[in-house]
């Protein structure tokens, strides 16, 4: 799965997610990626999210919207992502990650899986990582 979130100079937010699915999936299986609210969500008033991970688990907790729910309650993108990912792991044992931005351009790339390749570009600087803490 791959995805992106962005804020443009006018303060508009957007998200996109795309996937080839899951290895050896049943024919016709659809995971979270095509489902608005689970595999992605964007609202100028709150933020934008593109998640990745175990699709069935992401669907069960509507992960993208859950992260934005926590942001609506005043959490930062990082805090909101960690809360939602922890909830998902505890409730349905799923591993996942997400990239998140808020309307001010504050961003986060968080995951509870072993790895997640990510990169962020802002103010002419490129940030990136693969393992936790990078």
């Amino acid at each position, binding site marked *: 799965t791959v995805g*992106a979130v962005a804020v443009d100079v006018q303060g508009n937010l957007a998200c996109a997610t795309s996937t080839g699915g899951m290895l050896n999936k049943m024919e016709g299986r659809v995971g979270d990626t095509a489902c608005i609210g689970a595999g992605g969500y964007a609202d100028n008033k709150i933020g934008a999210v593109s998640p990745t991970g175990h699709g069935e688990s992401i669907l069960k907790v509507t992960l993208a919207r859950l992260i934005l729910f926590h942001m609506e309650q005043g959490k930062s993108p990082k805090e909101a992502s960690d809360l939602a990912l922890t909830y998902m792991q505890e409730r349905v044992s799923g591993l996942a990650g997400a990239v998140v931005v808020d309307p001010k351009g504050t961003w986060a790339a968080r995951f509870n899986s072993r790895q997640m390749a990510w990169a962020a570009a802002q103010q002419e600087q490129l940030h990136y990582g693969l393992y936790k803490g990078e």
Partner: protein
Amino acid sequence: MLPVVVVHGGAGFVPKERDELSIAGVQEAARRGYAVLKSGGSSMDAVVEAVTSLENNPAFNAGRGSVLNLKGEIEMDALVMDGSTLACGAVSAVKRVANPVCLARLVMDKTSHVCLTAEGACQFAKAMEIPEVTEESLITDYARKRWQDNLCSDSNPVLCQMGKMG
């Protein structure tokens, strides 16, 4: 407003020998998305540009490089959402399209629907004059090897999926 783009290449296990490919791929996607923002493009243009770059990169499991289903075929899903209007578009189980994210954007821009699936999505792609590509062109040697290595002997489709990442 300081424009920003953040991309990911999937959560899960990346073999050591593919570390650098993955990092280089997400860096390139972020650069491309950011270039769009810097030139005054919209956030929607930026995320589609970034994800298209990742779909075209065989190091990632989307577009070219997608994993194979039990039948050894590719079925892809994608979505886009515009935070200014809450407009959104998605496709699921789509085949023979190089960039599903572009098709999802067309669903958002050109139809009154949110999601088109399977054969209907493929017919919509044809109607939108999206070039059809061969399935072979989307399948990498790495994806085929993983598929062959992970075929379950009991062929129970539910058990086969336990613990696997999307």
